[in-house]
């Protein structure tokens, strides 16, 4: 990381610092309902970064993200849960320190990913996509039948608040304020999620630029050739699947905190762990540009951000109200689905590199128009 930082152009360094400062300052100026939009985008970003490593970098198409999210979310609730004896009936709660539970939940999700590796190592491409679809159905069944872990479909279970040494990261305890702005649950959750997302982002970028990324791309482009070059193909495939599952596990932990609830899905096509969510994550990765980490974040802004933004703008904009209200049933969710469905089609037809490629091209145009033409730099 530090090497990358030193190699960076000064202008880019400044841009990064500004971006981080702006993100840090957001809770001081923005109301909590808008913070929740940002937090939901960050959930999508973490999951999509994991998926873009798997699908874009290593070439394994997966629809299994929601299953590993469910695993992560459930593991956190079970490990960190404290049994109160009264309300929760027969829920299994182990009472671990919450932060340890987060780490363990991520590792458990990775372990489930590793357990799926024998399948992921044997089947490729579309076959793998459909094979991972079976995980969503497995999650649906297990979520419903293991209700002492997941809380079941009717009431669900509340995740234990995340805190470090008595300092709440997702609730109001103890009360503090920053620059005169009280730091309540949403503000704290913003910083927590921001930390998760930044760590996820940097780790992914580091892996892509380093040896792991090279072996993923080698396996993606030609697994037989990669094997001949000495890349242990089966192990690399299993590794990247486990890593991607770990990302999904973290996204799952974030999801249960965001909702303040863990709940098993009632059907395979609606809910937090459903096929719809799986398609949504795939859409983020495609729209952003396969294999691009910044692209995954942009994709998350579109797919996860847009419906919530539309919902919030609804009372303020008469244009939106005219479009979205009434009996026609154009809800923000439907409108977003149209947008990202169309975006997928346009990306595949016209710009297979997605938003990331558009961004790179725009940056190139700007820099070449500003400075005198130089020899192309080697990247």
């Amino acid at each position: 990381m530090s090497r990358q930082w030193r190699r960076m152009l000064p202008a880019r360094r400044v841009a990064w610092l500004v971006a981080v400062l702006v993100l840090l300052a957001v809770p001081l100026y923005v109301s909590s309902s808008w913070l929740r939009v940002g937090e939901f985008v960050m959930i999508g970003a973490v999951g999509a970064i994991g998926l873009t490593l798997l699908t874009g970098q290593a070439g394994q198409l997966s629809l299994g993200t929601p299953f590993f999210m469910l695993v992560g979310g459930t593991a956190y609730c079970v490990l960190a849960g404290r049994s109160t004896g009264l309300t929760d009936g027969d829920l299994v709660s182990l009472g671990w320190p919450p932060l340890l539970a987060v780490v363990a939940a991520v590792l458990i999700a990775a372990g489930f990913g590793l357990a799926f590796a024998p399948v992921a190592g044997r089947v490729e491409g579309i076959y793998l996509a459909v094979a991972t679809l079976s995980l969503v159905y497995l999650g649906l069944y297990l979520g419903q039948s293991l209700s002492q872990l997941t809380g079941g479909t009717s009431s669900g279970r509340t995740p234990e608040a995340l805190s470090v040494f008595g300092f709440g990261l997702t609730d109001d305890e103890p009360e503090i304020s920053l620059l005169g702005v009280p730091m309540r649950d949403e503000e704290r959750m913003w910083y927590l999620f921001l930390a998760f997302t930044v760590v996820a982002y940097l780790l992914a970028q580091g892996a892509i630029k380093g040896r792991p990324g090279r072996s993923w791309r080698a396996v993606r482009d030609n697994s037989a050739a990669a094997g001949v070059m000495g890349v242990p193909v089966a192990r690399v495939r299993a590794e990247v699947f486990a890593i991607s599952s770990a990302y999904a596990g973290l996204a799952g932990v974030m999801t249960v905190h965001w909702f303040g609830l863990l709940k098993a899905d009632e059907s395979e096509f609606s809910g937090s762990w459903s096929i719809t969510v799986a398609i949504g994550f795939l859409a983020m990765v495609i729209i952003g540009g396969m294999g691009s980490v910044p692209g995954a974040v942009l994709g998350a802004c579109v797919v996860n951000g847009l419906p919530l933004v539309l919902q919030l703008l609804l009372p303020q904009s008469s244009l939106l109200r005219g479009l979205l209200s009434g009996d026609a049933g154009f809800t923000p969710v439907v409108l977003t689905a149209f947008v990202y469905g169309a975006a997928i089609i346009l990306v595949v037809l016209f710009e297979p590199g997605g938003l990331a490629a558009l961004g790179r091209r725009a940056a190139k145009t700007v820099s070449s128009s500003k400075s005198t033409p130089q020899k192309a730099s080697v990247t």
Partner: protein
Amino acid sequence: MTTFLQLTVNGAGRGAVYALLALGFVVIFRATGVVNFAHGSLVLLGGYVVFATRDPLGYFGAAAAGILAAAAGALLIERMLISRTRLAEPIALALLTIGVDVIVLEEIVRRLGTDLPFLNAPFGEAVIRLGGVAVLREQLVALVVGTVIIVAFFLAFRYTGWGLSMRAQAENREASALMGIRNSRVTASAWLVAGALAGVAVLFLATQDFSGAGLSRATHALALVAFPAAIIGGLDSTAGAVLGGLVVGLTEAYSAEYISFDFSKSAVYLVMLIVLVVVPSGIFGTREVHRV
């Protein structure tokens, strides 16, 4: 024993419908190399047209309209999108169909709103007894119609010029083009046929006896079993699609009875996983050969 027989007949009836879906899926895959994620949307499109035209046209007129609409929808996807991206990778094309699927699904679900219409045939529900085995009439009709269509398809595939050109193109696209087969026409006809099969399937999918759910998002999800069905048999094998459909139908029926109803959906996918681990390209699928 009677329960078992009953389950087998019912499962085969479901299997025949799934086989129609899987067959369309395989036909598209063989002709264009595209895994069509929008198959569920074609199903919904057909169903929606049946629902919308049922009052003026009557059941059979509406059914014909629905089948035509699904076929036209498939043709439209092929002409407008797939045929313009010949050079794209198969995976990219699959993703393209996901985009189409998202839009069509949301639009039809929006149009249906709170309506969840059953597309039951007008002759009503009845239980037919065949020597101690009680069979739902709907399932029996599904079995008969499915079998007739599948047999007709295989006869056409084997003995007509269309079938020959389909097979030739799947074998070797360039060579068949050099022999005077019009690739684009063959491809378009493949999508047309697949759409029509999906249009037939929905007439049975969205009924009380089959799924207990009217035309809705659930129908779309139900149509997704075309995936496991096609994959169990092998994505590029038409016979495999029929076998896969039957395996899926029977798995659903047996597991719902002997294990639990909730488990039956997952059971289908578990069977598919097992098949994939043992034979990664399906039972009748061609094994991929890697050359370096």
